[in-house]
């Protein structure tokens, strides 16, 4: 586990191997050719992989049959906002997803801290419990929760949806936080204890304050899970004005099977927020932590 070197054995600078100049130049020419060959290969693969996504974008910007617009147009996208409740659905999705993100980080961060720093039987037992719970099919709990929530007025309700999302993102979020806290030296906390800080105080002031990448990574994960969920939303949401985007978009699809411009315009509305979140915060995101924390305890 030493230095992280991104140099490739084939093309990278050979550290400490002082070969003859000539041999080295030949190697780098071959290396250059290899680079462009690999560039072409990855370009082709990426292009093929992204075909479905490009289809969405192109169709949403193409004028619908019967439209007077030429070239590319935004009228499909503005159209779905006036034709459907897309604006309401977008708002519902944003409210649900952002609340899920905030609450699940708020619950997972302290729990992750305990998993990271505590090493008792109870703590590792709890970690195993989280692992088991995470692996269970959500369909098992959906029916009982539906009955429970129906009695509490939480069916067809964004709060009810948020509660389920928080609990289903919580397990992975807790591991991700724990994995990040593992990388923070305990000496930082020790120093603050000597200064008279309590365990809770040093968690808040020292550990959490140094954990922005970990928090963001967890937040992105929770965002994607809540934003993309379909199963829970379709079971728990009943009325049009309470729909989140997945259900709204899906219901629109089923009613307008041939209106591809409208369908794809709505699809663009739905896929933009996660893409924006990912594009801006991508450098903080790592799933490596999931595995690390899983294996660790």
């Amino acid at each position, binding site marked *: *586990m030493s230095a992280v070197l991104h140099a490739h054995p084939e093309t990278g600078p050979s550290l400490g191997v002082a070969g003859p100049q000539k041999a080295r130049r030949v190697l780098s020419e071959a290396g250059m050719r290899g680079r462009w060959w690999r560039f072409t290969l990855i370009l082709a693969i990426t292009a093929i992989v992204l075909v479905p996504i490009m289809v969405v974008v192109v169709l949403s910007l193409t004028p619908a049959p019967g439209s007077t617009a030429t070239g590319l147009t935004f009228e499909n996208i503005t159209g779905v906002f006036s034709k459907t409740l897309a604006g309401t659905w977008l708002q519902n999705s944003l409210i649900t997803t952002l609340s899920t993100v905030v609450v699940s980080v708020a619950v997972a961060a302290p729990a992750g801290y*305990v998993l990271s720093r505590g090493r008792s039987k109870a703590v590792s037992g709890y970690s195993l419990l989280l692992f088991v719970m995470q*692996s269970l099919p959500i369909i098992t709990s959906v029916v009982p929760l539906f009955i429970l929530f129906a009695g509490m007025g939480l069916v067809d309700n964004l709060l009810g949806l948020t509660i389920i999302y928080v609990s289903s993102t919580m397990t992975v979020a807790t591991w991700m936080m724990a994995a990040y806290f593992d990388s923070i030296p*305990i000496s930082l906390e020790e120093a603050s204890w000597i200064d008279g800080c309590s365990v809770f105080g040093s968690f808040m002031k020292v550990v959490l304050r140094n954990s922005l990448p970990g928090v963001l990574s967890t937040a992105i994960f929770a965002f994607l899970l809540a934003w*993309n969920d379909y199963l829970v939303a379709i079971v728990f949401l009943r009325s049009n004005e309470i729909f989140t985007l997945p259900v709204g978009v899906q219901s629109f699809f089923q009613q307008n099977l041939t209106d591809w411009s409208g369908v794809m315009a709505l699809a663009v509305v739905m896929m933009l927020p996660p893409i924006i979140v990912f594009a801006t915060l991508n450098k903080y995101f790592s799933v490596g932590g999931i595995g690390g*924390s899983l294996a660790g305890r």
Partner: protein
Amino acid sequence: MSSTTAQSGLARARRGLAPGGSGGGTLNRKSKLSGQTRRTFFWLLLPSIVLLILINGYPLIYAGVQATHDGSLIDTGNFVGFDNFATVLTAPAFWKAAQFTLWFTIVGVFGSWLVGLGLALLLRTKIPAGGTFKVLLLLPWVVPIVVSSTAWNWLVATPDSLIPSIFRNLGLGTPLFLADPHLAAVMVMIFKVWVSFPFMMMMISAALASVDTTVYEAASMDGASKWQQFTQITLPMIARSTYISWILMTIFCVNDFPTIYLLTGGGPVDATTSLVVLAYRSVFQDFQTGTGVAIAFLMTLTLVIVSVFLYRQIRKSSVE
């Protein structure tokens, strides 16, 4: 020891190698773990425990009750013992769905792993704009399934869709990708691999980043071929991450609902009905709550046993 991946930090901490103050550590070795610390830990854990009991634990017990009753969504019904389980286990539809789930999982896990591994290895080399490709290739995983399944439907669903048209123009006939039972099953699996490979790519890339590249130079000086380097160095180095990613992906595949349901709805003629889809249909379309929950419960039991077993395996393998 500059690698800051959680794995290495943990591995070190576990082996007790943690050199004074670098990378994690536990509070146990400190005198600070007093009753007071324990109380703080309890309060920090409490919200998570409450949620786990109420939203994860309670429904599980209630599901057990439902699975042994003949009720509906409104009424619990009468106690019928293991009748629902007997009904489920003797139904050919259950075994057909179990078989499809098995194949779907095998192809989903290893297909996405192979694609993810290939791309992770390719992206580790020096490529112009490599970072951009890395982000672009994550899109299938980031884009909601509701959206991507629509795009896939547009591409393949009808004989006049884009891909069947291309096949026809090439003189390869007009394959009915979603109407032919075998082809539909293959399509769902390809779709699953398309959705999942970025996750594998991220996992493997993270593992590869901590491999010391000087090892390769030493190996190639010793005359090891590229293939030997791959099987003798790369694979063992990423073995643990691979193992973990297989386990996670197995869970993701077995529990997957939208990938299948939104592309094919479980059809044609139930060819792509997985256990989750079957359970969903039993409860919300056939209103057979008892059998639906019994199916889910059987899956749950299997997954609990498998996951506890695998969890121990990972721990064992990481202690070595």
